[in-house]
């Protein structure tokens, strides 16, 4: 009985807040907001501090040596007396492996995300996504060790055949698709059914043969390539793309999921096929999220150090010819890691500051790409909302 009456009293007072309670709530609200604000503020301040401290030690380098040597020469001899600090080849190497890993990881990652979110049944997705995300948990030194001890010798011993098979496996589905689509398009205008079918078959056979020849010709050229050194830009790009994949897959899959069932069903209701729905509706709607995923993945590749230090060969020269991914390269991150030991503040000044100059350059690159992606996301949103 007593309990019931207490309950009733509480219920009757449920919407009436005492003055004391209100002040308490106000204090709690201000305190909570203040704490959140200070945490956010702290993060921003930390970023500024990093910029400040890196720049503070980077600027003396440019005061001592000027800008032109750093950006135009590829003579990297920091240990010599007097030293040379041309970082062009090193900057180029960084961009090269970043681009290479993006070219592998972005199409694969986005395709995998589409497959996970729109093609595979839910029961498989439940297991597949955590497994892909597991890739992110592998420490980079393990990746580097694999690249140095397994992948590098493999490339040296069976480089040509490996490249040939990779070419065949990657290109054959695209060629098949292209042949079918081109044949369809070229015969679409022919009215008479029998003639159209005959023409269609002829085109299929002709284009098929042509693409087969293309595939085999290029394949055999690749088969003849002898990879001289396994610690090269291709090796690093491959490993970096594996490291960037989980980020790209996971974040893009979230973006695709966020598009929502209503939009998908709307598209189907208008008579679109699944392919049309994915390409014309879901991908544009999720494009800002996918772009964010891509930028995150690329940043991962640009900033990665251990793998690059172990598997890139670390030779500071621009490959001959410039697009040759089968030569050893050197990156900014690996140079900072590798030259840190000797470049003591007390023993060599330009040598010490040049590493900070490289760090500053990396910071600026990532800052700019973040800004650019932000801009694109904003613009995309405007377009999508029809403004």
């Amino acid at each position, binding site marked *: 009985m007593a309990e019931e009456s207490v309950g009733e009293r509480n219920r009757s007072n449920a919407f009436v807040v005492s003055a004391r309670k209100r002040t308490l709530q106000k204090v709690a609200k201000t305190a909570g907001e203040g704490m959140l604000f200070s945490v956010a503020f702290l993060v921003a301040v930390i970023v500024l501090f990093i910029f400040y401290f890196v720049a503070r030690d980077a600027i003396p380098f440019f005061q001592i040596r000027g800008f032109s040597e750093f950006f135009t020469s590829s*003579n990297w001899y920091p240990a010599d007396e007097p030293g040379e600090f041309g970082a062009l080849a090193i900057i180029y190497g960084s961009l090269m492996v970043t681009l290479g890993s993006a070219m592998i990881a972005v199409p694969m990652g986005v395709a995998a995300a589409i497959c996970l979110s729109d093609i595979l049944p839910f029961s498989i997705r439940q297991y597949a996504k955590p497994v892909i995300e597991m890739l992110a948990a592998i420490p980079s030194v393990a990746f580097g060790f694999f690249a140095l001890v397994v992948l590098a010798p493999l490339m040296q011993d069976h480089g040509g055949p490996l490249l040939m098979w990779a070419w065949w496996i990657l290109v054959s589905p695209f060629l098949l698709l292209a042949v079918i689509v081109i044949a369809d398009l070229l015969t679409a205008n022919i009215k008479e059914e029998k003639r159209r079918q005959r023409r269609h078959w002829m085109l299929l056979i002709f284009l098929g043969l042509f693409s087969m020849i293309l595939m085999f010709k290029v394949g055999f050229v690749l088969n003849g390539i002898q990879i001289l050194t396994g610690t090269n830009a291709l090796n690093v790009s491959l490993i970096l793309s594996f490291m960037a994949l989980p980020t790209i897959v996971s974040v893009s899959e979230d973006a695709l999921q966020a598009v929502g069932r209503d939009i998908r069903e709307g598209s189907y209701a208008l008579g679109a096929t699944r392919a049309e729905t994915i390409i014309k509706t879901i991908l544009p709607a999720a494009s800002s999220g996918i772009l964010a995923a891509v930028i995150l993945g690329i940043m991962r590749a640009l900033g990665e150090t251990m793998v690059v230090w172990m598997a890139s060969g670390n030779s500071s*020269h621009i490959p001959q010819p410039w697009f040759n991914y089968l030569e050893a390269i050197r990156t900014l991150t690996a140079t900072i890691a590798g030259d840190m030991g000797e470049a003591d503040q007390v023993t060599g000044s330009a040598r010490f500051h040049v590493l900070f100059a490289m760090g500053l350059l990396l910071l600026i690159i990532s800052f700019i790409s973040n800004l650019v992606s932000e801009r694109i996301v904003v613009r995309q949103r405007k377009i999508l909302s029809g403004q």
Partner: protein
Amino acid sequence: MIKKLLLLGFFLSFAVGTAYADVKTLVLDGSTTVGPVAKSLATYFTKKYGVRVMVSESGSGNGAKSLINGSCTIAAMSRTMKDAEIAAARKKGVNPVAHVIAFDGLAMVVHPGNPVRSLSKAQISSIYRGTITNWKEVGGANARIVVIQRESNSGTQESFKELVTGKSMQITGSAETQSSNGAVKTRVSTTPSAIGFLGLGFVDRSVKVSAVNGVLPSIKTVKNGSYKVTRPLYLYTNGQPSGPVKQFIDLPNTVEGKAIISELGFVNR
């Protein structure tokens, strides 16, 4: 819960405190070449005197830096300290004293399948300068040479330049850089057209040693001076050592210490 954490923290701080207060721990940092010797000596030393020795291998340059900063008691180096390093040490009130513990031959190594048996110093110089780029120019197969060097804070790299190519020579930009003796060995043993250099103690059957000016490096040829690419290995201390530090430095003079050093492929002084 909080009580437990506090208790844990108390004990941890106690443990850390004793670890630092304990003079019976020596910290040794530096050359990856000296690393194996230092580790074996340390194990023996701990057994004999009950003094713990922590050995890290971060390169000669880092060893010097650690000694200057006071973060190690003994710096292992495969080269002498540079003038700049000594000046920096003096500035911080550190007086580095060198002790030679052993000699080491610097072996030029190639892939076991490489037919080249001997190279002259001039040929090695040209290979590292980038003027010789194909093995057939020095009597090998027709294949481009993959040149492998060490990173800039390696004492082995400095000794190599000093003893073989000349200090002021610039090694070709297309030379690959590896960060330890072990990594160089791995790369050379798996790359058919590679050339690299290793401390003699690291050489095993996975790589082939090339003679330099017709002399193969071995304990004998290093000792009698006929193999010219030879350098002393140093332990540096702050001032003249005393106590356990002195005991450790003197270890290479004892019979057991000498046995440990020659067992690892290095040469007693």
